[in-house]
């Protein structure tokens, strides 16, 4: 299937919605994406016809649910090109995936060890490491960004050494859309034997992910940012790493045998999946991934790139426009400021005209502080957005600026 924008838009029922009597223009895809009918139907069908607990029942429904659930693991493994489905741990989202690793690393770190992150991290790939370091006495080192929003690679080089026990870095900046040269970064880290965790929250919907090619130790993403349901996410981990890490939650499902004296844990990935999992979440995630695969990731990259270039050009025609993040490699995310107008004012007035944008620090306070700005207005575009919507947005923005002048 090629890229048929009309068909795509028709698949997303929410796009027909009005806000304040105006046609919704949804430009907040970095926060969460909308869901196609296929994903919504999948969840409904699960509860209508399939609902049952997995991995334990002898009855027909449970066996079916378990089969579907485990097949979704296979599909996701294949989608990101993992070596085996055992390397796919289901979580509630990127945040839990990162916290899982941060927790499991707590007994691998000592005083004098270092953890590396970058200054463009979302709080969810910042705070867990900061806490881990506080609790273990390890040092948190931060790779800064250049003025254009790209990672300072020379500085990264200067921070790599044998004391570093983990590098955690985002694939794509949620504020600026910068695509980090992640493969190169991982190779550099590996020269020192440093394992790498990649926060793929902003990448999964926009570029092709191949964990084997990247050679990362861990890769995390959320379903809701790739047209799937909220509350479901994935942690990919290389088998030997997952095998050696301690579980971080205990309960049913994750055990092998339990006696009053001792409990032995299940094998991977189950030892990290305590409790009843989000089965419809897994099935609907597969539906979402199939949806974008059908369109073709290459087609998506091409289309969103076109939107990015168009929106950037249009924005730059506005006086006193300042785009935060102009790295050469970036996705369809644009953060901006106009003169000294507060982002909140712009966001509030755009909302009145039906345009949903994000304003503020985007859960990346260290980055925003780095630029000494009060936050930004951010538009983040997805597969169903159009040039026509960008035109309407620009018109609304000009109206907004006239009101605030």
């Amino acid at each position, binding site marked *: 299937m090629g890229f048929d924008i009309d068909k795509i838009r028709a698949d997303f029922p929410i796009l027909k919605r009005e806000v*304040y009597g105006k046609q919704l223009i949804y430009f907040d895809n970095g926060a969460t994406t909308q869901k196609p009918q296929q994903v919504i139907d999948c969840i409904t069908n699960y509860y209508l016809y399939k609902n049952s607990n997995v991995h334990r029942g002898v009855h027909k429904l449970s066996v079916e649910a378990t089969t579907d659930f485990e097949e979704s693991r296979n599909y996701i493994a294949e989608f990101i090109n993992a070596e085996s489905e055992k390397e796919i741990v289901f979580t509630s989202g990127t945040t839990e995936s990162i916290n899982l690793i941060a927790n499991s690393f707590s007994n691998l770190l000592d005083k004098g060890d270092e953890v590396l992150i970058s200054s463009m991290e979302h709080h969810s790939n910042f705070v867990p490491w900061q806490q881990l370091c506080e609790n273990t006495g390890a040092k948190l080192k931060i790779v800064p960004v250049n003025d254009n929003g790209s990672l300072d690679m020379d500085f990264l080089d200067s921070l790599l050494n044998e004391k570093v026990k983990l590098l955690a870095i985002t694939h794509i900046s949620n504020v600026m859309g910068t695509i980090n040269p992640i493969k190169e970064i991982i190779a550099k880290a590996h020269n020192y034997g440093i394992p790498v965790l990649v926060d793929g929250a902003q990448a999964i919907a926009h570029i092709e992910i191949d964990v084997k090619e990247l050679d990362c130790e861990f890769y995390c993403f959320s379903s809701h940012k790739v047209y799937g349901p909220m509350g479901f996410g994935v942690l990919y981990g290389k088998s030997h790493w997952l095998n050696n890490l301690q579980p971080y939650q205990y309960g049913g499902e994750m055990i092998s045998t339990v006696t009053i004296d001792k409990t032995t844990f299940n094998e991977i990935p189950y030892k990290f999946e305590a409790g009843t999992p989000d089965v419809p979440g897994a099935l609907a995630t597969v539906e979402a991934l199939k949806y974008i695969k059908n369109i073709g990731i290459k087609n998506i990259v091409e289309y969103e790139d076109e939107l990015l270039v168009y929106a950037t050009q249009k924005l730059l025609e506005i006086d006193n426009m300042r785009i935060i993040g102009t790295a050469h490699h970036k996705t369809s995310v644009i953060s901006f400021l106009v003169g000294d107008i*507060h*982002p*909140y*004012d712009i966001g*509030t*007035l755009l909302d*009145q005209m039906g345009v949903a944008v994000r*304003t*503020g620090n985007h859960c990346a306070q260290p980055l925003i502080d780095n630029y000494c700005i*009060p*936050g930004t207005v951010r538009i983040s575009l997805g597969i169903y957005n159009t040039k026509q919507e960008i035109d309407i947005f620009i018109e609304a923005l000009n*109206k907004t600026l006239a*009101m*605030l002048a």
Partner: protein
Amino acid sequence: MTIEEKANSLVDEFQMFDEWMDKYSYIIELGKEMPLIDEKYKDPQHLISGCQSRVWLYAEISDGKVKFTADSDAVITKGIISLLLRVVSGETPNDIANADFSFIEEIGLKEHLSPTRANGLVSMMKQIKLYAKAFQLKSN
């Protein structure tokens, strides 16, 4: 005028506007007329938390009446505070502590009243009442 009368007259003023744009332009205008907080009080102590934009609020009492001054770096936020202050400034701590801010809803700014809204309007109202209650305690 009592707090209630002042609130009612604000609601009347806003009834002139059919268009949201005119309403918001008026809010922005009112913000420009608000008595500004003295620069020396623009410190962390007078900063209201819970706002995406920064808001400072200061209150003093003379002859039993509370006078508020404020500022914000976002003009819409500033305009909305000015609505609140226009209604409560110059009133007694008792009246302010018992004030009803539902006129904000009647003006058609209901969406700003959500506790999760990033402008912190709810925090502002709380802070106004806290000042009033503190003055009440002092005078007792």
